[in-house]
């Protein structure tokens, strides 16, 4: 029992990261129907920028994160601008285009930072807390708190601000949104920027949890995407739930199947998604394919 709870707690912090990645996917998807396969690589770039400024420039962790956010936001804008001609037209081509971006980003990371990864020390020193015999790392709590805060800010933005409402409108019907005077292109660019910002946040936070390497983008992206689909693609609550679910599943799989954890994780994911393709919260934008 204790082991089970310990595994569960361990899965939550990575789960929160997956949830952030999944939210980025979902936000971009529902505003413009674009599935950004480069998202994982943007996470990786974010992780590198945050860790570089934190380790080499010895800036405070929070400041390093802000720089990473700005850089990835710019990358997001570039991707959106280049692929804009395909928006709302060809799903599959857009998907492949973002894979192309992913390939480029990964190669650039290798050129800049080298193929070998780096370990990032935890910015929060201190021994793990002990709650009823279960050990909780302080950094895990920080991750969960920041992820929760980011989610709250995002939800407030979407629901309480004019710009957020405009983005919701674009998500529901981009033609009608244009008709009432919303600049759809700008709205999409902002969505992409926020998506990329979430990626940087996830990347910066995951640095001390995992090993930062150019290849981390692929795995993180795929797991985050799986989380988004599991929760129901395009749904923010779905992304959070899906992210935590994948994190916990990942943690159990790692505990019980050691090296085979990815094999088990993806098999389970495939089965779940075949039984319920719309995920837990269903797809907001119904795809009548």
């Amino acid at each position: 029992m204790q082991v089970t709870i310990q595994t569960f707690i361990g899965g939550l912090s990575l789960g929160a990261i997956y949830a952030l990645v999944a939210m980025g996917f979902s936000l971009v998807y529902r505003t413009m129907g674009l599935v950004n396969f480069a998202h994982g690589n943007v996470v990786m770039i974010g992780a590198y920028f945050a860790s570089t400024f934190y380790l080499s420039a010895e800036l405070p962790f929070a400041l390093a994160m802000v720089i990473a956010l700005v850089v990835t936001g710019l990358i997001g804008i570039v991707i959106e601008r280049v692929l804009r001609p395909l928006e709302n037209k060809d799903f599959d081509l857009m998907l492949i285009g973002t894979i192309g971006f992913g390939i480029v980003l990964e190669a650039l990371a290798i050129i800049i930072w080298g193929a070998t990864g780096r370990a990032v020390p935890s910015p929060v020193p201190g021994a793990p807390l002990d709650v009823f015999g279960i050990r909780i790392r302080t950094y895990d709590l920080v991750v969960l708190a920041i992820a929760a805060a980011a989610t709250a800010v995002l939800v407030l933005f979407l629901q309480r601000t004019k710009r957020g409402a405009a983005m919701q409108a674009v998500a529901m019907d981009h033609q009608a949104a244009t008709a009432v005077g919303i600049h759809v292109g700008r709205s999409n660019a902002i969505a992409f920027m926020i998506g990329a910002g979430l990626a940087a946040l996830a990347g910066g936070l995951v640095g001390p949890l995992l090993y930062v390497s150019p290849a981390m983008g692929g795995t993180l992206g795929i797991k985050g995407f799986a989380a988004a689909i599991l929760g129901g693609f395009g749904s923010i609550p779905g992304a959070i739930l899906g992210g935590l679910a994948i994190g916990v599943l990942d943690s159990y799989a790692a505990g019980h199947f050691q090296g085979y954890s990815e094999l088990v994780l993806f098999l389970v994911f495939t089965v779940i998604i075949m039984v319920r393709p719309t995920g837990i919260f269903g797809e907001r934008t119904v795809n009548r394919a």
Partner: protein
Amino acid sequence: MRYRVGGIALLGIAAWLLPYQLDSYAIHVVNVMLLYALLAVGLGLAMGIAGQINLAQVAFFGVGAYVTAILTTKSGWGFWTAAVVAVLAAAAVGLLVGLPALRMQSHYLGIVTLGLALAFTNWVTNSQLAGGAEGITGIPRPELPGVDLSSEYLFYYVELVVFAVALAFGIFVVRTPLGRRMRAMRDDALAAGAVGVEVPMLRMTAFLLASVYGGLAGVLYAGLIRYVAPETFSIANMFLLLAMVIIGGRQSLVGCVVGAISLALVRELLVDYPTYAQVAYGTVVVLTVVFAPTGLAGLPTRVAARLRRRGAATAGSLRPFQPYEEGPAPEGGDLLAVTALSKHFRGVKALQDVTLTVPTGQIRGIVGPNGSGKTTLFNVVSGFYKPTAGRVVIAGRDLTNARPYRLAQAGIARTFQNLRLFAALTVRENVLVALDRTRTLSSWRYALWQVGVWRHDRALRQQADAILERFGLTDFADNLPGALPYGIQRRVEVARAMAAAPRLLLLDEPAAGLNGEEVRQLAEIVRSIRGAGVTVVVIEHNMGLVMSLCDRVTVFANGRIIADGTPAEVAVQPDVVEAYLGDSTVIEVPKEVTI
């Protein structure tokens, strides 16, 4: 044609003589390149031809290679027996990976196949059986009587033969009924189902083909390198393969080969700068999808189209319709019987308790305001929606809940309100898809009796030309439908529906967007179709057409039938006038896509 045969012969000779020009390193590069080309053809068949996003091609490749390696080194099997089992294993894995395609498409399928590919790499990296991260060494060299295959020069010929046969087979599939159905499914899966294409079976076939090509490449890889390790089957290589197919042009198998060879060459040139090569091909992929979605293979047609636009367009003309011969007087009985049918979308009751019978040989009009459930009725009858309650009986057979393709095979054909022609198929091919009644299961003939397939295709083409002639479309046979005027596209859709030789034809607003003369021709065509013994149900807003064409009219409002009778009877009923004709004075707003 003669040039083409000559070109192929020249290419063949060049390929045969190639090893004499190469040193031992170059021949190795060429051998690896051929394997990529083989993989790319398989991926092109699944992605470009059948439209199934398959990011697990590299895993099929891996299964082929690993099974060969394990069986030869651990179980001591001979290379060729192991090879056969390996290809079968890859095919089985392909079918398993394809299963999710039955439930999801597009990006969902992309992530699931990618996840499964990762699962495969994860397994081989950890499994004792697969040698872990070090992989398996010491695969015995394949033996052929009298040929020393440890020589890469001679192995080249084995690869060349396999590749040539595989490519020729792939092209044969694309150009004959199976590939045509796949392309139709890629362009519009719904419309493909409506003309009788067995969409689920075809999706599996696409994965089967892709995995067999992958398995073959894997076997050859094991024989060539005689060493397998996980990194060969990594996601990075999957994306490289994807880049080859996209840059070459996924909808053309030759394009896939060109893409594979050129990218492999570029990679070889930049072998000392692999990351810069990666930046380069990633960039080219992005540029390709934005500026040249059809890839290298599509460039000649794009250039030609641009040149032609400058010159005079040589458009043909729509010829008059040649009526069908009068069929025998229809037997009595009801062809379509809908009983107590309801369809609810969450809270919206699109159809409520609809009961309707259409006798054989009738032209039935269905009218009603927008949103009154007319198209929903068609969608339920043709199998796109499952009804919430009620039954659909066609010619005495209960076909409630049947799949669209089953219904099409049972004799229902339909057209769509917003035209759903297969955009990348010519007008002739659009008709051919509907004409073709072969089942996917009979595709075994592709493996064993190609002559039969070819003969069948030739017979179909003759029938298609006869249908195009009848509908006056001969001049447009080789055009893509999107380039034709709207009125002609409408007629193509009717011709496609009739090519399936239906007993029941459902026309959804066939006169929408047609001018007066075209409406008159449409009425003539529909009467002739009925004369040939086909029962017709037509949804239409053009009341003049309904009044003159239909034997009987059913009026819908708010998902219910509010009147039913001859056109003259219905037109004077007060509630009909109120519900429908009264409404029609309001200008209709074009609807969003309803299906």
